[in-house]
């Protein structure tokens, strides 16, 4: 009897804690608020990227503090997807159907993004800007692109092409090698690098694939070392980059490493590589967090005030960057808000400049930019800006019809 009572108490607790079956889907806004959602890993293997989703929350808090947009406050919903596509989909559906969401922003999980992109488009929910290059509209091979998804994360091909140009023209390297993760992400970088080198009648001295789960890279590093590569591009995950740098340290190989933007959180990379990351150059789609840029400074001060417990870093800043164009479009639309009006304004973005590279969108092009900055990790994980926003003049997607 006692146990039964305990069980019944538990049941009552569940009923309190669990949400009741929600009402039918609502419109994404009303006179008081605009509802914006995001899914992303707050727990699980990709939890460090969770700062992206929380960064967007800072921007919305700031907007609300300044009075909202045309009298409406932004109501922000964040759902932890645990980096699982099924949980991401459950979270997105719950938000759209229980709360009514006007637009999504960010979302750093590639698989989760692919799992929900059809659902969001089918429900005419905007997605500005997905937090992963995997969700770019170029890869959809669809003309015109999906009207509801607006992207600005640079393609891996474009990044690699720009940094290769820098390595050849600014640093004067003749022997370049390429270490890449054996998947679409790594191969994308390899394509961009080879395309750029071909424009100089050059070829890679060595291209070395690695599997994402490999833990011993000694043979791969020896191949790179024996090729005589004085500069090596690295299109691998943070874990593999740590193994790479530590292996190279042990075999006495010290090329100029150049990496993709995912390794541009220098304080973190500096710490997890035990200082070996110092001197590594990376592409970056986010300006240095310690930059004196007025916009960066404004957000940095806001973070100190509104989210003092957060680490002010690249991922957090990226969340703001992904959400900025949506806020700008909402401001441009005016009080008569609608999804169509918002799409119209987003399609009229021409070299619009927020935190990141200038963005241009049109009805036929929803890949907003091909530009990246080039940064270098300085002492103690500090940021050194080497080159401001640079477009990929060889980008093939811009000429495709």
């Amino acid at each position, binding site marked *: *009897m006692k*146990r*039964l009572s*305990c*069980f019944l108490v*538990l049941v009552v607790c569940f009923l309190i*804690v*669990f*949400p009741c*079956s*929600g*009402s*039918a*889907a609502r419109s994404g806004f009303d006179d008081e608020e605009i509802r914006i959602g995001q899914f992303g890993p*707050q*727990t*699980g293997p990709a*939890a460090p990227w*969770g700062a992206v989703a*929380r960064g967007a929350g800072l921007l919305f808090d700031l907007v609300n503090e300044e009075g909202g947009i045309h009298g409406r406050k932004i109501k922000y*919903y*964040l*759902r*932890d997807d645990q*980096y*699982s*596509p*099924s*949980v991401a*989909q*459950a979270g997105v*559906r*719950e938000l*759209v*159907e*229980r*709360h009514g969401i006007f637009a999504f922003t960010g979302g750093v999980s*590639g*698989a989760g993004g*692919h*799992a929900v992109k*059809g*659902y969001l488009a089918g429900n005419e929910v905007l997605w500005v800007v997905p937090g992963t290059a*995997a969700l770019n509209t170029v890869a959809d091979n669809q003309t015109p692109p999906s009207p509801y998804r607006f992207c600005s994360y640079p393609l891996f091909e474009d990044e690699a092409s720009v940094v290769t140009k820098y390595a050849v023209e600014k640093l004067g390297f003749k022997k370049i090698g390429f270490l890449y993760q*054996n*998947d*679409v992400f790594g191969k994308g970088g390899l394509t961009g690098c080879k395309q750029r080198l071909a424009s100089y009648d050059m070829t890679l001295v060595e291209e070395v694939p690695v*599997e*994402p*789960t490999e833990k011993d890279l000694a043979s791969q590093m020896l191949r790179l070392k024996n090729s005589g590569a004085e500069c090596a591009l690295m299109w691998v995950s943070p874990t593999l980059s740590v193994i790479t740098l530590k292996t190279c340290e042990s075999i006495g190989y010290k090329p100029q490493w150049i990496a993709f933007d995912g390794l541009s959180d220098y304080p973190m990379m500096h710490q997890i590589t035990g200082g070996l990351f110092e001197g590594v150059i990376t592409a970056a789609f986010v300006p240095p967090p310690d930059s004196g840029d007025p916009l960066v400074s404004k957000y940095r001060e806001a973070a100190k005030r509104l*989210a003092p*417990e*957060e680490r002010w870093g690249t991922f957090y800043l990226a969340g703001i960057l992904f959400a900025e164009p949506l806020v700008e479009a909402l401001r441009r639309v005016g009080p008569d808000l609608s999804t169509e009006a918002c799409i119209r304004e987003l399609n009229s973005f021409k070299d619009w400049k927020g935190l990141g590279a200038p963005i241009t969108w049109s009805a036929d092009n929803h890949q907003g930019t091909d530009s990246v900055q080039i940064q270098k990790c300085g002492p103690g994980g500090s940021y050194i800006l080497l080159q401001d926003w640079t477009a990929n003049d060889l980008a093939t997607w811009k000429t495709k019809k």
Partner: protein
Amino acid sequence: MDMKRDYYEDIEVFSSGTVLFWSFALFAFLFTLPLYLPSYNIYLFNIILVHVILAVGLNILVGYTGQISLGHAGFFAIGAYGTVLLMTHLGVPFFAAIIAAGLIAAFFGFIIGLPALRLEGPYLAIATLGFGLTIMHIIGRWDIFGGRMGIQAPPLDIGIPQWGLSVLLDSDVKMYYLIVVIAIIMVIGARNMMKTRIGRAFVAIRDDDIAAEVMGVNLLAFKTLSFAVSAFYAGVAGGLFGFVLGFFDPFTFNLILSIIFLVMVVVGGLGSVLGAVMGAALITYLQYDLLKNVDEMPYLGDVLVWVSRKLFTVIGLENFNSIMLGLIMLGIVIFEPLGMFGIWIRIKKYWKTWPF
């Protein structure tokens, strides 16, 4: 009360008129569910039903045969990838594809069952764990499986489109009816199997495999059969899961998923079909919906988020989610060793003897 008077009573799937009545009431409830539930909940129900199929299958292996598996996500993946690839690459109709994918999973289950003849407990757990991880990595390395970027499931057509007989299930509700029918068939199938010679052989192996062999139970046949049947259930569940999700990658079928499947069976109650159903439903619900919306509740949400950020980490309420999920699982295992099935038995007895 539940005393069996002859053999035929013992093997009846519906043991009494009352059970038959409530079973049909449950079916009626399940078939009318979409009328009063919003679409999001139907999606959640689809996931729950897929997990029910898998958990019932896993329970045949773990609960009834006494073997362990930490590799069921591998069979689940074989089902998902197998069904989608058979349909997209070979144009196989859905039902043939999902059965074939289930049989492929069953074949791998049979192969994994062979070492089970010599391995027990933690050793078998490691062998099956290795299988699950291997499947995930093999899928990730082959382009035909979409590599690490994953694959998109085609629109779910349960007809034979090549012959012009197209039956497209293009909504969660339509998919729900397909899944609920398959789930009911497979749950009844499992319950029925446990009442046959095969089921009794499984139980005999669980209780004492040497004694079972002495009695004439062929260990090689029945242990591998148990793995194969369990893998078949996982394969069919995976085939359905692929379409519920629409897109999946190898990481979807990771080790954590295998552990969660095992948790479903243990929390539900080992050696009980009903327990597996309840465990799958509870754990899926906890994983997908626990504490949802609490941070949007006035006052309470703000307080909890504040406490979570101050005491734990900056991620906010998700800290509580993980803790709550863990505590609920721990609570059930510690206070109710028979799992949810044990709770159910006690409630049933309480009401049968009420008010005494």
